[in-house]
């Protein structure tokens, strides 16, 4: 059994196909005229790539095939050909000449600060490996001859290899190199092919024709399993496929009621790495990106560049889906040493969130600048937390505007505009929602704090925890006011507290007209399932009754009575 990094979940059981790496195996070119051999390898590679391009284009479209156009151009590029010829001239074996040039060029690409451009190093390695294969007279994998899906094993997969990846030919793959975010790992997750990467020493232990079990969840490869292991994993495979079919069906379906009322389901995230989970669960956006995690567990403020990189990573990976980034929300239960926040008697009613940021424009501006810059890379929305008055919104917007002017004066690239919203979590804000709706594009109700401040109950205090009632008619009426006010001004309302992911509250919130529900990624499919079995009309009738109910208990009974 071999251990690696779990890169793409699922189970694969199949015959092994090992992709050779001729240079790593120490093969050389035995031709008497090395320059001539190189020319021949070059011509053969070009012919091969042109054929591959045509094949991939007809199967997966021109966009996927475009990589091969780039490969053809690279094979005519003096920056590649000249150093190789020169090395051969100086007496190197053609294989070593190609390998040396490949490594030197790949190193240059690896230093670039653009993820996409860094990936081009893989293209260089790819064409060089192809050249080496021809130089050593090794044969290419004949994909057409594969009749049953194989478990692909390689040192790493080149773009040419991954272009061939289809679940009908490859049921899983494992590589010696790579990490969870390497190109092949991402592709495997996208295509739903189980994969294990970074399994050092794998190629020594395994060979073509072996039977292998690959567990992409545990990051394990079992070579030539015994009968007990085989039976165990065959069962696991069936269960996985079944669960996956159900999930898949649901993930791609919209969150729409039986009578066609559509809501948006988004995910709450804390770190850029949470995005993949959000997408895997079918999130239509990020409804709350808590930036405070970026500021925690460290000794100094994150720089503008660090913040920019984190925000950019999230909006890019969300690929045009909306990402609501909440500006720094610390204080209360979230203390940060280097910000030297004073000890307060009532931290939840104290110097926190936007209150602190407005007093410290120096550090707030750093975040606002990073947001403007990251806004170039996708759909970024800015949200200010702990708003209690109109003045705070105007001040925060003024600082946001100044940050943009600063950046433009410096000649930096910024988003053309950013949609601005606020959190509604303080009753005073809910009560002036009409006035606030004129200033912003959207509201997001922070239900946890709104409940706590409205009922005046600390939910961490066990003695009064029973008073913390999300279904308190007072809370519901405030929520209804906020939604109605926003809609009157043509603005939309989301919710990012725990209530939004609570399936017992969902019908009521739909009835109140909530537009977007943001929750932990794991809750999305449950909520979606619930939404898809509800009728919008029934939800509205329920909401009307709940708003005039006397107690949380009465509301609970009304909600519970809904089929």
């Amino acid at each position, binding site marked *: 059994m071999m251990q690696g990094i779990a890169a793409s979940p699922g189970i694969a059981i199949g015959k092994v196909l090992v992709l050779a790496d001729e240079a790593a195996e120490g093969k050389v070119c035995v031709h008497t005229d090395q320059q001539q051999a190189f020319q021949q390898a070059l011509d053969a590679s070009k012919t091969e790539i042109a054929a591959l391009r045509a094949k991939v284009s007809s199967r997966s479209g021109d966009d996927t095939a475009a990589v091969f156009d*780039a490969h053809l151009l690279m094979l005519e590029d003096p*920056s590649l050909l000249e150093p190789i010829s020169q090395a051969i001239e100086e007496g190197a074996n053609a294989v070593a000449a190609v390998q040396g040039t490949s490594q030197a060029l790949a190193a240059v*690409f690896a230093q*670039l600060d653009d993820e996409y*451009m860094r990936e081009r190093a893989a293209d260089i390695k790819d064409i060089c490996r192809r050249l080496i294969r021809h130089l050593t007279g090794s044969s290419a994998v004949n994909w057409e001859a594969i009749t049953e899906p194989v478990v692909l094993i390689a040192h790493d997969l080149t773009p040419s290899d991954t272009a061939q990846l289809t679940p009908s030919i490859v049921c899983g793959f494992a590589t010696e190199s790579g990490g969870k975010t390497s190109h092949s790992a991402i592709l495997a997750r996208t295509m739903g092919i189980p994969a294990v990467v970074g399994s050092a020493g794998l190629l020594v232990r395994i060979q073509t024709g072996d039977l292998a079990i690959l567990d992409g969840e545990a990051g394990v490869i079992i070579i030539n399993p015994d009968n007990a292991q085989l039976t165990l994993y065959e069962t696991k495979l069936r269960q996985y496929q079944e669960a996956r079919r159900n999930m898949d069906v649901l993930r791609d379906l919209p969150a729409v009621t039986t009578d066609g009322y559509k809501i948006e389901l988004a995910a709450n995230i804390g770190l850029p790495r949470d995005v993949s989970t959000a997408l895997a669960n079918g999130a239509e956006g990020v409804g709350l990106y808590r930036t405070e995690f970026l500021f925690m567990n460290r000794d100094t403020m994150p720089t503008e560049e660090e913040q920019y990189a984190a925000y950019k990573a999230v909006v890019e990976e969300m690929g045009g889906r909306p990402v609501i980034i909440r500006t720094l929300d610390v204080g209360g239960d979230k203390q940060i040493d280097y910000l030297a926040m004073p000890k307060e008697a009532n931290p939840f009613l104290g110097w926190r969130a936007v209150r602190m940021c407005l007093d410290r424009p120096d550090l707030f501006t750093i975040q606002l600048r990073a947001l403007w810059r990251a806004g170039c890379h996708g759909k970024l929305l800015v949200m200010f937390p702990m708003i209690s008055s109109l003045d705070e919104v105007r001040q925060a917007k003024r600082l946001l505007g100044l940050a943009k002017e600063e950046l433009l004066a410096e000649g930096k690239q910024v988003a053309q505009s950013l949609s601005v919203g606020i959190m509604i979590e303080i009753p005073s804000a809910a009560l002036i929602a009409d006035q606030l709706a004129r200033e912003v594009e959207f509201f997001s109700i922070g239900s946890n704090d709104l409940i706590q401040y409205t009922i005046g109950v600390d939910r961490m205090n066990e003695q009064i925890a029973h008073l913390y009632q999300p279904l308190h008619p007072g809370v519901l009426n405030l929520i209804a006011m906020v939604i109605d006010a926003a809609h009157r001004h043509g603005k939309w309302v989301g919710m990012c507290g725990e209530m939004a992911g609570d399936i017992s509250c969902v019908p009521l919130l739909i009835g109140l007209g909530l537009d977007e529900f943001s929750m932990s990624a794991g809750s999305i499919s449950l909520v979606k399932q619930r939404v898809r079995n509800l009728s919008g009309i029934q939800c509205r009738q329920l909401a009307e009754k709940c708003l005039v109910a006397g107690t949380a208990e009465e509301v609970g009974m009304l909600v519970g009575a809904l089929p």
Partner: protein
Amino acid sequence: MIQAEVTLTNPSGLHARPAAQFAQTAGQFKTTVVKVVKDGREVDAKSVIGIMTLGAKQGTILTIQAEGPEEAEVVQTLVTIVENGFGERREA
């Protein structure tokens, strides 16, 4: 020698496709030596790999230098395709 400065306007910068278009265009002027300079780093304008290693993004200022019989024409042609954003669709 003739040289001109130009700012990259297309959203994706000198990614694979624009870099290829740039190199192929420069390559048509066989008798003229063409270079691209960014932040003091100089590459052969006829090399797609070289151009890509500049990692030039939207907003980057490039200097195009040419020396040879068609130097004026090649600089003019390259400046034009950069200014036209390589025909990439721009957001309104």
